[in-house]
C-alpha cells in the first residue's frame, strides 16, 4: 500500500513547528542574561534563589499529600463498588466527572466562601489553608485518579483475589493494603504522576489560597519582574512536566489514554 505521504508529513511538520518554536525561543532567550554572550547565568540565579527551592518544596509536599488523600479516597471506593455495590457505579462515575463541570476558578471561589466562615474557619490557620489546598487539588485530579484506578481494577480479578485472601484469613485492611494496592501499582503510580504534574505548577487555586508560598504563583511573580529568569523557569517547568509524563509512559507501556489532564 504505497500512498502519497506528502500531506501527512506536511501536517506533522506544521505541528512540530508549533510545538518547538516557543520552546526554542524561550531556551535561546534564557541564555541571554549576560550581555553579548550566551550563558547559563539565569539558570544559576534561579537555582540559587531561595524562593525557588522553598516554593518548589512546598508544592512538592502539597502534591505528595494530595496523592495520598486521593489514593486513600479513590482506591477503596473503586474497589468497593466493584465488589459489593455495583449498583452505585454509575452514580460514583458521575460524581468523579463533576470536577470537569466546575472550572478551577469557580471551585476555589466556592471553597473560599464555604470554608473561610462559620463553622469551619479553615482559612484562619496555615494548617487549615494547606488542608483546603490539598482538598481542592484532590477534587481537581479526581477524574484522572478514578479513571486510572478503575481501569487498573478492571484488569485484575478483584473477586477471586479477595476471596483467596479471605480464605487465608486476611481481614479487610490486609486485603486492601497487601493484595489490592500492590496489584494496582501501575495504575496508582500513573495517577500519582499525573497529579504531580498538575499540582506542581498549578496557579489558579494556589494563588487565591496560599499565594506566593506555592510554585505556580512564584513562577508568575518571577515573570512579572525578571525576564530572563522567567524563561529559564519556563524551560525548567517544561522539563519537569516532561519527566512526569515520561515516567507515566514508562509505567504504562502501550496504554495511551491515561495521560490527559488539565489545569490551565
Amino acid at each position, binding site marked *: 500500500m504505497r500512498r502519497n505521504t506528502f500531506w501527512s508529513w506536511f501536517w506533522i511538520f506544521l505541528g512540530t513547528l508549533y510545538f518547538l518554536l516557543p520552546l526554542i525561543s524561550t531556551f535561546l532567550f534564557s541564555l541571554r542574561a549576560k550581555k553579548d554572550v550566551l550563558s547559563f547565568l539565569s539558570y544559576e540565579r534561579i537555582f540559587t534563589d531561595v524562593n525557588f527551592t522553598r516554593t518548589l518544596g512546598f508544592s512538592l509536599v502539597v502534591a505528595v499529600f494530595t496523592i495520598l488523600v486521593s489514593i486513600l479516597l479513590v482506591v477503596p471506593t473503586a474497589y468497593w463498588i466493584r465488589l459489593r455495590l455495583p449498583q*452505585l457505579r454509575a452514580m460514583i462515575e458521575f*460524581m468523579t466527572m463533576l470536577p470537569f*463541570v466546575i472550572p478551577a476558578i469557580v471551585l476555589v*471561589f466556592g471553597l473560599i466562601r464555604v470554608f473561610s466562615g462559620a463553622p469551619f474557619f479553615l482559612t484562619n490557620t496555615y494548617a487549615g489553608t494547606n488542608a483546603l489546598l490539598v482538598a481542592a487539588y484532590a477534587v481537581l485530579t479526581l477524574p484522572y485518579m478514578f479513571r486510572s484506578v478503575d481501569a487498573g481494577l478492571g484488569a485484575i480479578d478483584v473477586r477471586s483475589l479477595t476471596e483467596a485472601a479471605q480464605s487465608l484469613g486476611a481481614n479487610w485492611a490486609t486485603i486492601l493494603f497487601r493484595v489490592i494496592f500492590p496489584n494496582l501499582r501501575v495504575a496508582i503510580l500513573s495517577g500519582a504522576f499525573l497529579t504531580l504534574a498538575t499540582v506542581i505548577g498549578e496557579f489558579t487555586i494556589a494563588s487565591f489560597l496560599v499565594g506566593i508560598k506555592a510554585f505556580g504563583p512564584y513562577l508568575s511573580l518571577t515573570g512579572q519582574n525578571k525576564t530572563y529568569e522567567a524563561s529559564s*523557569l519556563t524551560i525548567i517547568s517544561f522539563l519537569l512536566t516532561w519527566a512526569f509524563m515520561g515516567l507515566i509512559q514508562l509505567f504504562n507501556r502501550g496504554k495511551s489514554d491515561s495521560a490527559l489532564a488539565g489545569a490551565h
Partner: protein
Amino acid sequence: MSSNSFSKPVDTKRDAPKARPALSGWRDWLGVAPFFLFVFLFIVLPSFRLLIGSFQDVDGNFTLKNFADLMDPSILGAYWVTIRISLATAFGGGLLGFLMAYAVTVGGLPRWVRSALLTFSGVASNFAGVPLAFAFITTLGRVGMVTVFLKLIGVDLYDKGFSLYSFWGLSLTYMYFQFPLMVLTITPALDGLRREWREAAENLGATPFEYWVKVALPILTPSILGTMILLFGNAFGAYATALSLTGGFINLITILIGSQIKGDVLHNVGLGYALAFGMVVVMGVMMTLYYFLRRRSERWLKQ
C-alpha cells in the same frame, strides 16, 4: 496434576472460611461513606453556596436581580469573548490535532513519528498556565523571536494588527495545549477504524474520498465532536494562561471572577456568584452533550 495440593494436612476442626465476611445492608454503604463525605464537602457544598448566593441580594433576601444583572453589556461581552475563544481553539486545535493524528495512523508515516508525537502530546497537553504564557511572549511578543525574524524578512506582525495580548494571540497560545489533547484522544479512535470497512467500501466501488465521507467520518464524528467539547471546556475554564499573558486586560469570565474573589469589583457579591454559576451551567450543558456523543461513538468504536 500438582502433587502438592494434597501434601498439606487440612485442618478439619475449623470451619471452611466464609467467602466474604458477613457484612450486610448499611455496613456495605460504610465502605463508600468517606468518598461521599468528601464529594459533599468539597464539591457539592461549594457549588450550592454559589447557587444559593446567586439568588440572594446583599442582605440575604431572595432575588432574581443577579441574573438580570448578567445581561449587562460588559458581562455578556465577557461571556461572549470566552465562548468565542473556546469555540475557536476547540475547532482550530481539534482540526490540527485530527490531521496530525490522521497522519500518524492512516497517513502512512513511520512508526517512530507516531510514538514521538504521542509522547510530545502527553507533555504539551499538560504544559499550560504561567510557563506557557512566558513561552509565547518570547516567541510572538513584541520582541519575540518569531516576531523579530518575520520583521527581518519584511513582515511586521504588529503593524498588521496582530497582538499576542488580544483574542487571536490568546487563541494561538491556548492551541498549544488544545491540539495535543485532540491527538491523544482521537488516535485510538482512528486506530479503531477497521481495515475491513475500507476493503468492503473499495469492493463496492467506493473511491477513497467516498470511503471517508460516507463511512469513516460518520463513524468518527461523535468522537471528534466529543473531544472538541472537552477542548471547549479546557479553554472555557482557563485562567492562569490568560491572566499571565494579558495581565488581566482581557475581558474573560474567568478573569472577572478572579478579580471578584480578590475584592468586590462588581460591587455586588451576588453577581459574582451568578457569574460563577453561569459558567457551571455552560459546562454542564457541554458535558451532557459530551456524554451522549461518547455513548454514540462507543457503538462502533469499542476501546
